Each structure stands twice: as structure tokens, then as C-alpha cells.
């Protein structure tokens, strides 16, 4: 019955006005909350011209902040990749008491406000606590120095890798590892040849997200950092200081570095997703 075909086709999609309304709302949201602010950051950054922009981002405090941020990322991402793989492994491949509780607790760093997360570490190892003063006596400084910033960032970004890996490893099951076992492989051979290759894309993806968040983390780092210029200021903290000093052009210039890094992360993420999909079709 060819004459009924258009009728059937009409029914599967929503009416045109609804489509226009939904697409319009989405575009409005994108313009208002993403394109406009992004554009404003760059507009403000270049308000006083190229030379001020370049000066702001090459000035020594700004460079120190970039250096500290990149150092933090370089320490946090590998560590959280390691913790993420081991936690996901334990949760998906073994059964133990308290597994369900642990799985729920993995989300805690997302659920807790970063400021609270920072405060926890101040209360734990700050100089007024017994443990903190003991560390101080032995010349180890955590709060108001790089270790504190790293630890706070580790805590806040922990869930990214593990969240990415658990569903992946659950879906893959233990069959391939067991097959490798019966074929005579040793533990490290199974990890290196089977498990890690199978989760490689998910792991990279989780690491990218973890890195992005490490770069941008403000709240927890702000509490433990102490805002010492040139020493414990990360890029987001530096932006905030410049802004509160009414140095808007410099503030937005440094902020544009963050925007640039964020766009880079998104681009990486997209290319990963494409590869990930292509690879997971090989299942």
C-alpha cells in the first residue's frame, strides 16, 4: 500500500514546531552559556592589545603558575591512572566483603564540595594538627606547598579513570584472562598482553578527563595552597588573584590559557571517542 507510506513516516518523528523549539532552545543555551562566555574571555584578554596579552602570559608569576599546574598534572594523572586501574581491577575481577560500599564511595570525591575536600587535608596534615607538626619537625611541608596541591588534586580527580574503567571491565568479563591462564600465561603476561590492551582506550579517555580537571581545579587547591605568588599559585588561582586586583586584561589573558587547554582536551576527547568506538566494534 504505497499511499500509506508517508503517513507512517510522519508518525515516527516529532511535529515540526516541536523540533524547531527544541533545537532553538539548545542553540540558545549554547550561545548564552558557552560561545558567548568563551568569546568574552578572548575579547577581554585582547582588550588592551597583543603586547599586553603577551606580557601578561609571559610574566614570571604567570609562568610559575603554568609550571606548577603542569607539574601537578604530570604527577596526578599517572598516579590516578594507576589507582584507577588497580581499583577497577579489584572491583570487577574479585569478590570481597564491602565491595558494594567501596563502589559507592568511589563517587565521594565528586559528591563532596572541593572546598570541603581541601579543608579535610588541612585538618588532617595542617601545621596545627599533631601529624602535621610531626611532619613539620621532620622538614616535610604539605599544606601551603606543592605536595598539598597534588594531594588535593589527586582526591578530587580520582573517580575519572576508575569510573571509565569499571563498566568497560565489567562488560569484558574474565573470559580472556582465563583463556590466557589455561594457555600457560603468567600473571604479568596476562596484565601486559590481555588486560591493559583491552582497556587502553578507556584508560586514555579517563586520563584525559582527569588531566582536564587537574588543570582547572580551583576549590580544593585554593584551600591548601596559601596563594603564595610564584610558589603555590596554580593557573586558576593566579587568574583569581589578578581579577581581584582589578587587573582584568591580565586576568583574562591567563584565563585564555585555561580555555585553550580546555579546547585541546575536548579535541583530544573527541578523537579518542572516535578511535574508541572503532576499536570496541572489534569485540
Amino acid at each position: 500500500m504505497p499511499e500509506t507510506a508517508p503517513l507512517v513516516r510522519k508518525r515516527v518523528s516529532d511535529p515540526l514546531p516541536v523540533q524547531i523549539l527544541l533545537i532553538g532552545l539548545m542553540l540558545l543555551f549554547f550561545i548564552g552559556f558557552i560561545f558567548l562566555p568563551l568569546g568574552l574571555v578572548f575579547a577581554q584578554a585582547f582588550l588592551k592589545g597583543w603586547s599586553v596579552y603577551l606580557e601578561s602570559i609571559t610574566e614570571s608569576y604567570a609562568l610559575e603558575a603554568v609550571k606548577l599546574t603542569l607539574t601537578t598534572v604530570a604527577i596526578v594523572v599517572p598516579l590516578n591512572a594507576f589507582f584507577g586501574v588497580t581499583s577497577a581491577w579489584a572491583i570487577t575481577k574479585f569478590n570481597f566483603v564491602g565491595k558494594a560500599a567501596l563502589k559507592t564511595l568511589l563517587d565521594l570525591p565528586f559528591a563532596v564540595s572541593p572546598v570541603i575536600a581541601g579543608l579535610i587535608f588541612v585538618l588532617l596534615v595542617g601545621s596545627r594538627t599533631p601529624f602535621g607538626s610531626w611532619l613539620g619537625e621532620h622538614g616535610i611541608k604539605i599544606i601551603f606547598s606543592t605536595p598539598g596541591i597534588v594531594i588535593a588534586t589527586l582526591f578530587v580527580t580520582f573517580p575519572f579513570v576508575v569510573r571509565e574503567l569499571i563498566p568497560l571491565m565489567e562488560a569484558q568479563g574474565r573470559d580472556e584472562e582465563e583463556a590466557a591462564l589455561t594457555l600457560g600465561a603468567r600473571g604479568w603476561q596476562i596484565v601486559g598482553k590481555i588486560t591493559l590492551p583491552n582497556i587502553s582506550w578507556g584508560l586514555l579517555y579517563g586520563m584525559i578527563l582527569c588531566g582536564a580537571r587537574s588543570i582547572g581545579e580551583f576549590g580544593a587547591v585554593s584551600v591548601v595552597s596559601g596563594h603564595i605568588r610564584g610558589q603555590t599559585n596554580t593557573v586558576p588561582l593566579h587568574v583569581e588573584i589578578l581579577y581581584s586586583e582589578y587587573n582584568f586584561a591580565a586576568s583574562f589573558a591567563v584565563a585564555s590559557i585555561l580555555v585553550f587547554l580546555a579546547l585541546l582536551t575536548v579535541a583530544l576527547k573527541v578523537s579518542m571517542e572516535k578511535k574508541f568506538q572503532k576499536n570496541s566494534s572489534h569485540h
Partner: protein
Amino acid sequence: MGIELQNITKKFGGYTAIDDISLNVASGELVALLGPSGCGKTTLLRIIAGLEMPDGGKIILEDKDTTNLPPREKNVGFVFQHYALFRRMTVFENVAFGLKVLPRKERPSVTEIRDRVEHLLKMVQMEWALKRYPSQLSGGQRQRIALARALAVNPKVLLLDEPFSALDAKVRQELRRWVRKLHDDIHVTSIFVTHDQEEALELADRIVVINKGRIEQQGTPQEVYDHPANAFVYNFLGNVNVFHGRVHNGKVTLGSHRVDAPDEFKNTEEKASQAFVRPHEIGISRIRSSEADLEGTIQEVRLMGGQIGLNLECEGFEHPIEAEIPRDLYINLQLSRGDKVFVSLNRVKVFTGDYAI
């Protein structure tokens, strides 16, 4: 002796998966572990492979006690239900895996590995797929690769866990004939697990019927099919009509009818019994051939390929009786729904005792 299992037990929490199983498999034999899902057959296979540790008992492979050895030292080939091919590796790398992970001293040279992999792939008729990835192959092809991979390490025994159950009916049949032929060629001691009685009957030298973690019966397919040891085995080995009733002095009640019981019940006291008749052993006729015939009405006619299935409503029977007759007979008798026919149940098998199925 290829495989010797002595008093194997295994519990998961409070649940007994394997309840004191002892089993011998001769070298070169192909044995089927047959049972319903959850009967413990896969657990038993995994225990032999070392993927599970038994709570008690001994596993002896080729006269060597391997009970406490890790899987790596057992030299067992294992084929998984869902193939478990390494998804990130090509077919070649999959089959070569067991050779490449050997310690340097025992590892064959690169050319030896290549020759062996090529030989195995030829054997499973997959030599063209050397560079493919598992995801580019069909289910049947994947299972052939899994088989080649398991055989690459020259295993003492080959264990197959429901190897055909994830395949389409047609591929399944093809592959299982092919596996039988392969086994006849290479004679590796093999155990395969299945819940499909047809598969076990067609493929195995010997069938071990397992239920609730225990062995119900073992024997050649002929023995097990023709002389089932108990009601469970009879019921599990094919479609069957079950009649609960009583047996007394050579007569057994079927519904409200009484028919002759097999000879061994000639002088028994009255006992609860279960009588079994396979659908294809039921006689259907337009004319009465003996006093014992039942009168039935055809309730439903089912096309089943070469056979025709009939549901017969018979007076005095609670449930319809299922019968299967050859297509020719069906055409000759010109049967159709609603017809009255005579039904003869002359080959009943009777078991006494309360056997829960």
C-alpha cells in the same frame, strides 16, 4: 588413564555444586558431561582445568596428580562457550599466544611458531583468516580459532565448555560433526559439557549424565538412551510423556487406564510409579488393534520437519499425550485436527520411587 577424578566436591557458600564425583576418562576418549543448567557440569570442567579449586578430592591427568597445580602447569586446552578470543589480537596472534608465553628456554623459534600456527589453522580450515581480527569472523569461525588456539600448546586433555551453544542450529550441527571427525584424527582425550542431549548422543564416545552435582549414569550413548538408569536420565534424554500412577502385579496405571508393565514388575506389590513413553514410540491408527488401545482426539498438529507432532486428548488423562509419527504415515492416514484415532502405548518404561524431576 587420561583423566581420573577422585571424590571431587565443591561448595559455593552453602550450595553444593559438585557432590563427591568420581570419574575416569580413558586416553583418547571423547566424553560428554550432560545435564541441566546449574547441575555442576561446567564447575567440574573448570575444576579439571584449574580455574576453580575443589574443596576435596583429587584430579589426576595422565597419571600425574595435578590437584594443586595452577592452570598454567596443567597443560589443559580449554574452549569457552563464548570463544574468549583475544579481541586485540589477530587470528595468528591468538593461536600463537600459548607458544609465545612459554619461558625462553622452551619457546619454539619464530619460524617454528609460524609453521605450527599455519598447520593448526589449516587443520581447522581457517588458514585464510590469519590476519583477521576475531570481530571479523562468524561464531562458528571463532570457535574453530578457539579450538586451534587450545590445541597449539599440545594439551594432554581438551576441555570444551558448551562449545556449540552460542551458534545457530545449522552451524552447530556442522561444527559438531566436524569436531567428531577432528577428534577421530588427533585423538586427544576430551571432555565436553552440554545441556543438549542430541549433541551428547551424536558426538560422544561416552555420556556422563549429571544432576544436582552427582553422576546419575554413565555409559555409551546407546546404553544410556536404551537403558536409562532412572527417571531423571530417561526424562532428560529426550521428549517424553510422563504418567504418574501406580504399578501392581504386572500392570501399571496410566490415567484411568491400566496397561501391561514391563516384565520386571510382574510380581511387585503396589507402589507409586512413573511411566514414560517417548512421543515417537506411540502408535497411531485408524482402527483398533488391541484391547489396550486408547481412544483419542487430535487436538493439535505440528509440522516438525520429517516428523509430525500430534497432541492427543484421551479420555481419563489429565494432560494431552504427545505423539510423533512419520510424515508418510500422517499422509496415508489422512489425519487432521478433530479426528478420532486409536492410540497404543505398548512401550512404556516404568520407574518406581519418588523421583523429583
